[in-house]
């Protein structure tokens, strides 16, 4: 336990991860270590082996979206050098000798960022052995998802195939209101998934928080304040903090983990949905002024959007919530995101209710529907560029990573997706995906099953021989 170190400063963590990628073992190394690989199997993995070092690349002639909220431009070019975007826009000069891909008639976006997911923590949600989202454990706030992220989980590859390149990974509560520390990951086909470990702490404060605190909101708020005060006590005098005292709610390990939350060094992602709960969370800053809040959910955020904007608190929303599915979502509407953005709130979208480990690819559907609202009288939607931003640069910025990922501005990671059509249309799909400038494989278990059963009848041999 004493080996726990304070949060690694973000910059050093990311740059180390990114720069180290090309020298770390890839899946190909893993494949090579396995015997009995067929030539086809090796060929399938060749995509990710060839550019062991990210090569310079220019994609030209595309409808290009930067991801920063600006609208897509025609005939755009993006240049990636040494794993980073070096230029993107119209009339970009391509350095001599750069490999060029003609993307006329295609679309190019930054790799998409899921603002709320459990990808890599879950293989099959209903199979407990494969679900690492939560635990009934003596620990809560100190739980760190980063070491448990499985880059070989099938939903990682399935999401990557759909153009998702990074994701916010959120733990789920098992004991009490704090779930632990989430991470930002990449979905690359290699064994180094972590973009930013311990990126935030997660706490439940709405209906779920009330339940986790024993049954009421007042209990949740009191629990929260008490735990943060205990963390302050720990920070003042670590040696004398008695986590085993009858009065202590936090053991030493969890108290230590919350120190960076109280000081504002680590963002605190708070799940709340109702307008009143949102205000109650914003008011926590009266007691703990340094809290660096991120709201998750916020189905009724539109009702208090000016307050959220004034507090400069980013929101990660579900986007399509429009049912009074609980008493904390009575005023849910699909116009929630548009109204908050209009009020000046920085809004991202993610998977709030289910399938958080699996269906990151719904991001384009969420964003596309925000655009659809513009044609519905009385509704508030987003422009296309704003909608893309909610699934690219906005979640990156909410995580403090806006200068590293989530857009095609110069200096950002070379996370790029080449699409066969408008990426927010359900009929479109990626043709190519790069992460840190490295071309990614676009096959996965599902594409293998698809190919095996392209005709259902057995051939000369059973289906089991078709692979």
């Amino acid at each position, binding site marked *: 336990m004493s080996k726990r170190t304070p949060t690694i400063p973000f910059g050093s963590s990311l740059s180390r991860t990114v720069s180290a990628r090309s020298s770390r073992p890839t899946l190909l190394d893993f494949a090579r270590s396995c015997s009995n690989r067929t030539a086809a199997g090796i060929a399938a993995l060749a995509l990710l082996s060839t550019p062991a070092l990210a090569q310079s690349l220019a994609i030209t002639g595309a409808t290009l979206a930067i991801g920063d909220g600006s609208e897509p431009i025609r005939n755009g070019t993006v240049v990636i050098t040494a794993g980073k975007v070096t230029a993107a826009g119209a009339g970009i000069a391509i350095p001599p000798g750069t490999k060029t891909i003609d993307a006329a008639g295609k679309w190019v976006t930054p790799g998409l960022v899921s603002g709320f997911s459990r990808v890599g923590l879950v293989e*099959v*949600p*209903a*199979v407990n052995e494969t679900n690492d989202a939560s635990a009934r454990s003596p620990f809560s706030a100190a739980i760190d998802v980063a070491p448990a992220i499985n880059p070989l989980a*099938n*939903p990682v590859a*399935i999401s990557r195939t759909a153009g998702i390149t990074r994701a916010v990974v959120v733990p789920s509560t098992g004991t009490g209101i704090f779930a632990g520390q989430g991470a930002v990951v990449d979905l690359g086909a290699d064994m180094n998934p972590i973009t930013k470990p311990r990126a935030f702490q997660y706490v439940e404060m709405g209906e779920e928080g009330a339940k986790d605190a024993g049954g009421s909101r007042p209990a949740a708020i009191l629990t929260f304040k008490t735990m943060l005060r205990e963390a302050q006590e720990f920070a003042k005098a670590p040696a004398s903090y008695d986590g085993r005292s009858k009065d202590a709610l936090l053991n030493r390990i969890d108290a230590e983990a919350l120190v960076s939350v109280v000081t504002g060094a680590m963002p605190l992602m708070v799940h709340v949905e109702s*307008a009143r709960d949102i205000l109650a969370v914003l008011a926590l800053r009266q007691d703990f002024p340094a809290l660096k809040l991120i709201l998750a959910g916020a189905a*009724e955020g539109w*009702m208090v959007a000016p307050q959220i904007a004034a507090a400069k608190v980013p929101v990660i929303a579900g986007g*399509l919530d*429009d*049912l*009074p*599915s*609980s*008493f904390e*979502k*009575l*005023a*849910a*509407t*699909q*116009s929630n995101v548009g109204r908050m953005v209009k009020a000046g709130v920085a809004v991202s979208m993610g998977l709030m209710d*289910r*399938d958080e480990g*699996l*269906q990151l*690819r719904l991001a*384009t*559907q969420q964003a*596309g*529907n925000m*655009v*659809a*609202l513009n*044609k*519905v*009288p*009385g*509704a508030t939607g987003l422009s296309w560029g704003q909608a893309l931003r909610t699934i690219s640069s906005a979640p990156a910025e909410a995580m403090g990573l806006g200068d590293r990922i989530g857009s095609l501005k110069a200096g950002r990671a070379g996370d790029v997706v080449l699409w*066969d059509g408008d990426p*927010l*249309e*359900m*009929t*479109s*799909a990626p043709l190519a995906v790069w992460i840190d400038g490295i071309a990614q494989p676009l096959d996965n278990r*599902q*594409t293998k*099953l*698809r190919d095996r*059963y*392209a005709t*259902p*009848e057995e051939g000369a041999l059973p289906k089991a021989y078709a692979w």
Partner: protein
Amino acid sequence: MRKSATPLLIAALLAGVAGPAGAKKDKDAPAASQGSSADPENPYPSTYKAYPGTATAIRGATIFDGEGGRIDNGVIFLSDGKVTAIGGPDTPIPADIAVFDGTGKYVTPGVIDIHSHLGNYPSPGVDAHSDGNEATAPVTAHVWAEHSIWPQDAGFSRALANGGVTSLQILPGSANLFGGRSVTLKNVPARTMQGMKFPGAPHGLKMACGENPKRVYGSKGREPSTRMGNMAVNRATWIKARDYQKKRAAGKDQPRDLGMETLADVLEGKILVHNHCYRADEMANVIDMGKEFGYRVTAFHHAVEAYKIADLLRDNGVCSALWGDWYGFKMEAYDGIKENVPLVHRAGACTIVHSDDDNGIQRLNQEAAKALGAGRRMGIDIPDEIAWTWLAINPARAMGISEQTGSLKVGKMADVVLWNGNPFSTYTRPDKVWIDGALLYDSANPKLRPVSDFEVGQIGAGDVK
């Protein structure tokens, strides 16, 4: 089951006075009979009546007729609750009627969702509203989903306004092998379930394979706890049902049994079987079980592995009601693929896109678009107007309502959606929705947004959703 009214009435009085003992006596009483229902065969009859509509025409739209036909620059004329004319730009329409300009817009039959739990798992999803699974025994063929339906579920209005859904089948949940009877509704707000009930639609029987029944009952230390247990309980139940049905058909006296009545109606083809089933191997077992006992599965629901046995499904005339891309949430959904719908379609089997979800039902057109795109990328080039059959005539047939609705043919119910663009685009929403010719949603008219009793007076009531 056709005796005089008196014994049941007395039994009912006894039950009311004497409590459980009386109720037990009632259950054991010989051949219960009918009360005062006007139609003892249909004791909870539909009271739905079409709302008044005005004669309406739409000109200049692209029309998908729901049976695979497409008319560019089309005209459709609705009057007296029916489709009265449909055709090209020269289609004659009366001079003095409301005409909408459909230029750049699309017209389709109303979306039909064959698998919904609106009303029996309504919003808000609190325990007090959990009415979809009678998860107290693996065989509950005697329960009717319609008796759980809360018409004030806000989900109905979202399905209408955002999804263009005009008819839907509400099923019991999948905890049980025999979950009970389903009911088909018109998506029209009403005070009662009867006020929504689709006139003349047959009941369905919900059955379930696989993990859910064996988990629910296995965890209670009861049969079934395995897939073989599932099948054994199913077969034992069908044996009883066949016996009951034979006696009933021969007019022999036997105690009335609600569950057996449902199963006997299945064996006589009056009730359609809707079988929740994920895995290919289990679907094959169920198809054989149908042959063993003399019934046919109308549709496998969810069927994430339908693509593995698309030929078998085609040859046995079984429909598959599928998601666009949901997969992997449990073991039996692990092999779900985006190409399921187009692969089953290409094999020539009946294909349906369904929701099973109060959010998904608002975007069935987008679920179909996912399947369409995935199919096209693997060379299965299905035209838009053919794909619309997944949301129209195919579910209508599998629900036994295709004579009345499910396509834009003259004489059918005027269940129509005018979309503000191609409905396979994410950017498209319903502009107007007619049910039996009555305009029940108009995006331009805030007063034509239904607000349920639950919502009225609450924050957000009447907001655009």
